[in-house]
Structures are given as C-alpha cells and as structure tokens.
C-alpha cells in the first residue's frame, strides 16, 4: 500500500547491490584498502628482512640451499680485514659526508631564504643533482676524475698552474675515498638545502623583528632563533640522510667498485660483491645484517639527540 501511495520514493533511492553493501561494511573496507599496501610490504619488505637475517646464519650460495651454520659467517667476517676496512670507510664516509652536506646545505638554504629574483627557478635548478639518476651523475664524476683527461686536473694544472702533474683521483686509497665523499656531498646538498629551506620558511619573521629590537647580532639571531627553530626538521632530515648515506651503494659501485685494492668498499658494495657476483649469499647477507646495528644506533642518536628540544618545548607532533 505504501508503495502504491508513494511510488517515486522507492525509485529515487535504489537499494545498493549486495556487493556494494558488502564493500560499505567498514571492517571489510579497512581490510580491502590496507590489503595491497600491507600485502606488498610484508611480502617484499618484512619477509625479506627476516629472511636476510636467517640467511646470515646459513651457508647458502647461489643455486644451493643453505645449512644453518650458527655464527660462522660472522666469525669469518670478524677476522676479515676487508670487512673491517669496509666498516671503517662506511662510518668515515657517512660522518664526513653528513657534516659536509649539512653545513653546505644549511648555508645554501640560508642564502635561498633571502629576497632573491628568480627564486623558484633557482630552487628548481638546485634540485637537479637530486633528480638525475645517481648512477648517471656518478658516471659524470667518474669522467671528471679520469686520471688523464680530468677537467679538474686541467683547471689546477693548466689554467691555475697550481700543480705540475695530473691529480690521480681514483688511483690510490685516500684520494679515492675523498673523491667519493665529494661526489656524495655534491649529490646530497640539494635535498638538505631544500628541506631546510622549507623549515626556515616556517620560522615567524616576528621572532627576528623582536631580536632586532633587542639588538641581536646576525650570529646571535642564527644561534638563538634560526638554529633552535630548525632543529626538529634537521633531526628528521639528518636521520634519513645518515641512513641512506651509510647504506649507499650506487656512487661507490659506479665510480670505483670498491677499488683500489678494496679500499673504498662500503658495507653495501662489499655485501653485493660477496653475495651476487661472488655467489656467497650467506656471507653477503651477514654483511648486510651487520649494517643494522649501525643504522639503529644512528637513527636513535640523531633522533634523540636532535629532537630532544622539541619535547622540552612540548610541541605536538602534528
């Protein structure tokens, strides 16, 4: 009777199909929405992470399933001078490159934060080293570090006349190490600068005005306003930067492949060399697993050391 009295009512809002109602159930929807992301991450990230730790305790090689060998891989590595040299260089590379990237990146961010013409174009140009595939810019560095036809040698030798001979960038231990660090800093500056610039732009100008009225010098304004206000963002950017510098692979693999005489191996390149071309999957995994404590330590250190101030000020995380 109702349907006869108000026939158009039932047509204006058609009953959704069973499938649509099924997907409107919140629990179903949550599971359906999370499934692709969580599925992908568990299959290709969490599971391999666990498998990697397991492999580190086996003697698996390419084409042969491994047996559990306990700490044998680690015992072998701890007596291996190449492993220790890779540990040393990874730490050294990360430390020097991080200091370089952050001091130069902060400087560049401060420069870009001033009133400039063509600001957005400058910003776009500066990000280029970050956009371009690292391996490709690394090959350009490799060419610039060429023992015979290096343009840098040319500038120092023939243009400026400061040197008699070509610089042998990649031929011996320490020059090769410093050359790689320089390339890493070059690649890292844009990211640091642009992130810190975003942080700088959130600092209220009224703080600087107040400081100016109080007669603060430029250095004091930097030390007591800019730097503390920048610390939270600095902590996050530095955490990321340290993690990805420590586990860097591309630059070293492209420019030196760990040479000369294994002096520029990072843990990641050593793990690759032993694991994939060398076929010793267990040993390679052990080297990769050896990175984890360093990463956890670096993350905790940079996060707690730098982000402490934010808690003291009691700011929210949002």
């Amino acid at each position, binding site marked *: 009777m109702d349907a006869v009295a108000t026939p158009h009512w039932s047509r204006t809002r058609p009953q959704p199909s069973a499938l649509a109602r099924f997907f*409107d159930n*919140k*629990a179903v929807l*949550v599971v359906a*929405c999370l499934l692709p*992301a*969580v599925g*992908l*991450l568990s299959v*290709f*990230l969490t599971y391999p*992470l666990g*498998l*990697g730790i397991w*492999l580190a305790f086996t003697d698996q090689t390419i084409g042969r399933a491994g047996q559990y060998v306990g700490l044998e891989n680690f015992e072998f590595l701890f007596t291996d001078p190449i492993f220790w040299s890779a540990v040393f260089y990874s730490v050294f590379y990360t430390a020097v490159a991080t200091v370089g990237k952050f001091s130069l990146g902060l400087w560049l961010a401060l*420069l870009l*934060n*001033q009133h400039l013409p063509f600001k957005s174009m400058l910003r776009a140009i*500066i990000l*280029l*080293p970050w*956009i371009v*595939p690292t*391996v*490709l*810019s690394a*090959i*350009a560095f490799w*060419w*610039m570090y060429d023992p015979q*036809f290096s343009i840098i040698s040319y500038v120092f030798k023939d243009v400026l006349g400061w040197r008699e001979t070509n610089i042998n960038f990649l031929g011996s231990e320490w020059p090769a190490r410093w050359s790689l660090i320089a390339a890493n800093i*070059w690649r890292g500056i*844009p990211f640091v600068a*642009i*992130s810190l*610039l*975003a*942080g700088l732009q959130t600092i209220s*100008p009224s703080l*600087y005005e107040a400081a*100016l009225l109080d007669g603060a010098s430029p250095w004091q*304004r930097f030390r007591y306003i800019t730097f503390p206000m920048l610390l939270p*963002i600095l902590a996050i950017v530095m*955490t990321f930067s340290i*993690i*990805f510098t420590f*586990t*860097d*692979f*591309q630059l070293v*693999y*492209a420019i030196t492949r760990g040479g000369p005489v294994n002096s520029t191996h990072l843990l990641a390149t050593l*793990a*690759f060399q032993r694991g*994939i071309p060398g076929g010793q*999957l267990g040993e390679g995994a052990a080297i*990769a697993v050896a*990175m*984890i404590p360093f990463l956890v330590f670096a*993350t905790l250190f940079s996060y707690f050391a730098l982000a402490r101030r934010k808690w003291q000020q009691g700011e929210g995380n949002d």
Partner: protein
Amino acid sequence: MSNSSTAAPEAMQWDSKARRMVVLWLPLACFVIILLFPFYWMSITAFKPDAELYDFATHNPFWITSPTLAHIRKLLFETDYPSWLMTTMMVAIGSTFLSLLASTLAAYAIQRLRFRGSQYVGLGIYLAYLVPPSILFIPLATIVVQLGLFDSPLALILVYPTFLVPFCTWLLIGYFKSIPYELEECALIDGASRLQILWQITLPLAVPGLISAGIFSFTLSWNEFIYALAFIQSSDNKTVPVAILTELVTGDVYQWGALMAGSLLGSLPVAIFYSFFVDYYVSSLTGAVKE
C-alpha cells in the same frame, strides 16, 4: 652571517650592495656553478668529437668547436639503448601506478576510516621507509628467483613499491588530512557509499597530492639501481642506469663520449618530467619532511 636579511632588509642600512654581493651572490653563484658543472660537462662531452675530447692542448676543453652527433648515433643504433629506455619507462610507470593505487587506499583507510590501531599501521608503514634496499637485495634476490621472476622487469615493478608505498602513503595521509571531513559527512548523509566518497569526493580534492606522489615515485623508480642490478641479467631487460654501467663500460678503454651521451639521454626524461612539475615535487619533498 648570511641570514642577515631574513627579517626585514629595509631595516638594515648597513646591508650595502657590495656586502650583499660578497655574502649572497658570490656564494650562491659558486653553489650553482658547482651543482650544475657535472651536467654541463656531461652534455658537452656527449657532443664532442673524440679528437677534441682527448686533446686539451689544442682545444679549449670547456667548449666544442665542431659538435658531432656521432656518440648519440652510436648509442641509438649500435646498442640496445632504445630497448633499455623502453624497459625503464615501463618499469617506472608500472611501479608508480601500483604504488599509487596501494598507497591511496592505505592512506584513505588510515586517515579517514579511523579504525582501532590505525596509527600503528601508519607508523609501521613509516618505519618501512627506514629500511634501505641495501639490506634487502640479497634475500629479495632469492625470493625473486623462487617466484620465477628472475631477469623479468615484472620483478622490479613488484619490488619498487617497497620503497615507494611508504613515502606515498605518508604524503597522501597529509593531503587527506587537509581535506575537510565535513565534505564526506555531507556525502554520507546524501547516501553515498564509502567507495563513492573516496572516488568522487576525496580523490578529486587530493589530485595535487596524487601528482606529487606520482612524480616522486616515477623519479625514484627511474633512478633505482641496486635491485635492477641484482635481479636483471639479460641485456634487453636492463634499465638505463644499470645498462650504461654494465653494457657500455667495456674493457679498459672507456668510450667517454658514448657514456656521457647515454647518461645525458637517461637523465633527460626525468629532468623534463620534473621541470613540468617542479612545484609539486618541491612541495612533496618538503611536505613529507614536515609531516
């Protein structure tokens, strides 16, 4: 220091032109020159004939007197470069699409469906971003072999989302947060289903976020190296960065002209793509850091 005029430049009379030159323009020019020089050198090498390339005494190395396309011709017609480009493009587009799909749904679930424990799922996805590929490539290689995907670009399309999804999800959570919840409530009252709301209201409003996430994913997958190096063996299926390093570097005599031409051509697509969307890119980079 150099932040002298961050506040009000007109308030500082001592900020003379000469001073500004020394503390601002000079360092800035140095930065720009150093940051761009490798690209200049890459481009100029790509068009230089070999005679000029290896003779600094009679030719100024900073300029080309007789530009040539020989290196590029060699690259395009004597190597598999076009097929490498196609593979890279396919892998980048495929993994970008996959990770956008997965992360949009995940971000919507975490930010808008507000189920119990959603913040822990969010934190878990964020932590996934802190796991670098260098730790994962060896076990992943064994998994890829077990799945029968070794030497197939499909392996890369499936694996790249591991580092794309965390970033994109985080970025999109931020974007969804900025869309007023009232809009969704209105739609709910009007009888829209949750999926209709996502498709017709939230997503159109989140388009800038989707573009940022898409560009970011595309450039990151274009640049990826270690997985592509470990999982791909045959020349046809290699991506550009891997192929240049493993196929063009042959023997002891490096073909610098061809190498630089390859690097230049491999960088151009991302550079062009990026130049169209710089502002989105910068906002995604800085937005994700601020989150």
